[in-house]
């Protein structure tokens, strides 16, 4: 019984050691016609979860080169986990039409 308990403990420790670190979560708030923050900096090779929260209307967040294509509505956030591969500065847009200022709803992702 004692042996069995030790074995289970070892297995648990091993599993815990192997569990990957949870990605850093970056919260982005979207309202007509701005994102906050409007610049996000991430590191190359670092997994990050991008979570989009819409506060007034449905909004999108699109950065094709980084694999970000989110669509959030009030009370229904959307998220994606990415691992940026290459450094650079990437423009992001709202791609869910949200009114007259929609075309100016932009932000920037910087990968260092």
């Amino acid at each position: 019984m004692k042996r069995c308990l030790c074995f289970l403990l070892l297995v648990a420790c091993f599993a815990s050691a192997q569990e990957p670190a949870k990605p850093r979560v970056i919260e982005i708030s979207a309202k007509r016609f701005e994102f906050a923050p409007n610049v996000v900096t991430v590191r190359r090779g670092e997994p990050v979860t991008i979570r989009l929260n819409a506060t007034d209307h449905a909004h999108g967040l699109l950065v094709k080169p980084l694999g970000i294509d989110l669509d959030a509505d009030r009370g229904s956030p959307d998220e994606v986990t990415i691992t940026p591969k290459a450094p650079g500065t990437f423009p992001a847009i709202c791609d869910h039409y949200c009114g007259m200022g929609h075309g100016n709803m932009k932000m920037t992702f910087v990968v260092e």
Partner: protein
Amino acid sequence: MSRSFDRRSFLRLSAASIGTGALLQFFPFTAHGQTMSKLLGKRTGEAPSPFSVVQLSDTHVGFNGPPDPLGTAAFERAVETINGLSSQPDLILFTGDLTHDSEDSAEHAKRFAKFKEIAGRLRVQKRFFVPGEHDAALDGGTLFREHLGETHRSFDHKGVHFVALDNVSTGRPAVGKAQLAWLKSDLARYSRETPIVVFTHRPLFDLKPEWEWFTSDGDAVMNVLAPYEAVTVLYGHIHREQHTTLGNAQHHAARSLIFAFPDPATAAEKKPLPFDASQPFRNLGIRRITDSGARLAIDDIELTKREISGANGVAQLLRQGELS
């Protein structure tokens, strides 16, 4: 300017931009086309025969800000131009952003009514419409349907199958699963040789995603269309002329009737081209492509409104080029 079109298809596309839009003429190829016409006539019940289409786009009725202070003047001028064509087109296709949106639904409804009043001056009675995001994205297409009917549909004309696709009314640049399923079933009864003309608002390929010039499920749409040998996609949204060939499909964007956007290949920003009071209709004009045997001849006509002898007048400036 030199551009060639794919001649392998039986369908020859003859495109003439009307500043504002495009005059498209369809002819079956001479010898090969006649054979194909007979075959298609057996398969679809209606053999292709020559006809022309005018495409109008992005009239933005209700828009009254910079850079263009002309309001509906270019749209109305385009209607006059089309009505003045010696040979009237069979069909008029409107590819979205017919109105400019308003938070006030009653005001938006007035803009739809104004659009219909101007479009109603066209002599051509067969008019078909798809919405742009300014028409349908804020209310899911409710006002559009009330005034202009369903946001997607299909019909046949002289042996060509026309498909109107809505890639705006969910708010996202997308056609969506339901419409994709409809498209598959709609096309299922047509042979691969049937010429297909799709008209929609946004480009169905990644023209410039960071300027929102794309459709997120455009690849899925084009995969459904891939088996068909002669596919023509007419779209608007980008407020400039653009011609792109991808696989069996030719994609043609029409100019707008309100203001022009710059060339995405060279411009750093998506900012409207400045208004030129001396040439208020600059970037609006007619492109007519006609067959001259082995070559396609192209005439570009730029419509320019300017002062003539102290009075307002309209002059057509003619530029000529040739396609090889």
